[in-house]
């Protein structure tokens, strides 16, 4: 399958500059910002990673994954158990979390991806609920109590850099995906799946691939977040607000674009943080309104609308 990931060179030079600058600033940030700003940046990066992972699947295939938080939660649990039970070093534990999530995605992709959009969406929602119930009652993973991380793992600077790395990798991976054969196939599938299949595209395979990759990154992001907040339990691991927020951020920025989810995360998380959207109902109301407004007024999201008006392509893309 390696030939499926052939990627054609694009004019990287001009496009890459803003990203490189942003990355450089973020790398240097811990040296000159206050701890609270660094913490803000860490969670911003988390949301960037999550929205981008969500975008990797929903943005590229057009299938809405209402059970997205399942990947986050599985990654978190996978990492936690590897770390606390098996003493596996953190970087490896994170990867295991990501792989667990991916494996789960691959497993459920066979029955679910054959379904049309609406069925798939609800099936995934049910799945996430089911996982919550299972983990809540399963003694092997401490059921409702969950896990707490001993102080020895606390290292805010390291956590920051890990999260930065995850966010950066999701952006890079999405870029590669969009500009590869896989991206091309997904583009066709998103537009007209039946026709795509009739010209030889194995839709099920490509969808499953995007699904698994999306799950991988969401899982790793889940792992790093768990490490940062030092606890994990079913309600926090499978919190549907995470799905809601990821959806809102990527929609606002633009599903299917490269920089959209980044912008969306930046805007929404800044608003949430600085205007104290901590009350649950405010969160729901604001995000609900945003989703409705985006669908009706700017369906392609901010970046999507800009790029289609200017007729340029964001991130290259098929």
């Amino acid at each position, binding site marked *: 399958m390696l030939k499926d990931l052939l990627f054609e060179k694009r004019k990287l030079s001009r496009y890459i500059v803003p990203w490189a600058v942003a990355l450089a600033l973020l790398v240097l940030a811990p040296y000159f910002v206050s701890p609270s700003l660094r913490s803000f940046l860490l969670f911003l990066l988390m949301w960037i990673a999550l929205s981008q992972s969500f975008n990797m699947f929903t943005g590229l295939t057009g299938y809405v994954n209402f059970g997205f938080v399942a990947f986050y939660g599985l990654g978190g649990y996978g990492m936690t158990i590897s770390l606390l039970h098996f003493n596996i070093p953190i970087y490896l534990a994170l990867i295991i979390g990501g792989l667990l999530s991916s494996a789960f995605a691959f497993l459920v992709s066979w029955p679910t991806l054959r379904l049309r959009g609406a069925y798939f969406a609800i099936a995934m929602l049910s799945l996430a609920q089911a996982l919550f119930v299972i983990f809540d009652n399963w003694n092997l993973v401490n059921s409702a109590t969950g896990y707490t991380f001993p102080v020895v793992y606390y290292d805010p600077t390291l956590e920051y850099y890990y999260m930065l790395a995850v966010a950066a990798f999701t952006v890079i991976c999405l870029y590669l995906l969009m500009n590869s*054969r896989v991206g*091309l*196939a997904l*583009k*066709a599938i998103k*537009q*007209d799946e*039946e*026709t*795509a*299949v*009739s*010209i*030889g*595209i*194995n*839709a099920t395979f490509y969808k499953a691939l995007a699904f698994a990759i999306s799950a991988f990154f969401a899982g790793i992001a889940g792992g790093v977040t768990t490490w940062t907040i030092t606890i994990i339990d079913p309600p926090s691991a499978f919190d549907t607000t995470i799905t809601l927020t990821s959806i809102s951020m990527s929609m606002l920025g633009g599903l299917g674009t490269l920089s959209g989810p980044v912008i969306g995360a930046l805007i929404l998380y800044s608003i949430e943080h600085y205007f104290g959207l901590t009350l649950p109902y405010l969160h729901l109301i604001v995000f609900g309104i945003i989703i409705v407004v985006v669908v009706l007024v700017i369906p392609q999201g901010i970046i999507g609308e800009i790029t289609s008006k200017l007729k340029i392509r964001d991130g290259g893309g098929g």
Partner: protein
Amino acid sequence: MVSPERTGATSVVGSPILDVSMIRKTFAGLVALDGVSLQLGSSEILGLIGPNGAGKSTLFNIISGSMKPTAGKVKFHDLDITGLPPNRICKLGIARTFQIPRPFLDMTVLENVEIAQIFGGNRVPKIGTPREICELVGLRDKMHLSAKVLNVSGKKRLEVARALATSPEVLLLDEIAAGMAPAEGEWVIGFMEKMSREYGVSIIWVEHVMRLLMKGVDRVIVIDHGIKIAEGKPEDVVNDERVQQAYLGEKKK
């Protein structure tokens, strides 16, 4: 490629490359196809006609893999392809067009053809590069236009071009002439001849524009209410009583 003479035979000379046998398809009690069989020979142009609702599109769907038959077999070069998914069947060498053209509207004409060749066209010999194929179907000057701006005739040609990009041995054409101007009809026939004689592509052609089809094909099969009611040379089939009865009430063009 050796071009065989137009035989006009009632059945296939030599062994058929496509062997569809006793296809039966029911939908919740409705019998769409009831034991339909046909064979397609190498480089042959086979017409498939019948009144609306006769089951022609269903048959195409079954051959190309978008539907599974309730019973019966489809064999391609002695390989049983019944029930295989459409993308596998396309890669094996059977391509189809859709009655209502479905181009990828976000892409240009050329890109539409290119993508078909990238994913479905790994067989040899190729019919041609995407550019050459655009030329073949008469879309060369529209190659870089968005598929959105094509008219009906252009979209139909694009359907065919996309199918050809997958280097098919068998081409299932679904009403390619309908919606085209009468003047283009001659082009359609010429195109078919070229595909079959020069490139060795076998074609099953469903059409309602009767006079065109009768001129262009080697052999015709008539289906009505899911059953094959006639088969043979165009001139014989036209005069067949059962065929005329089936079309009673329908204008013969």
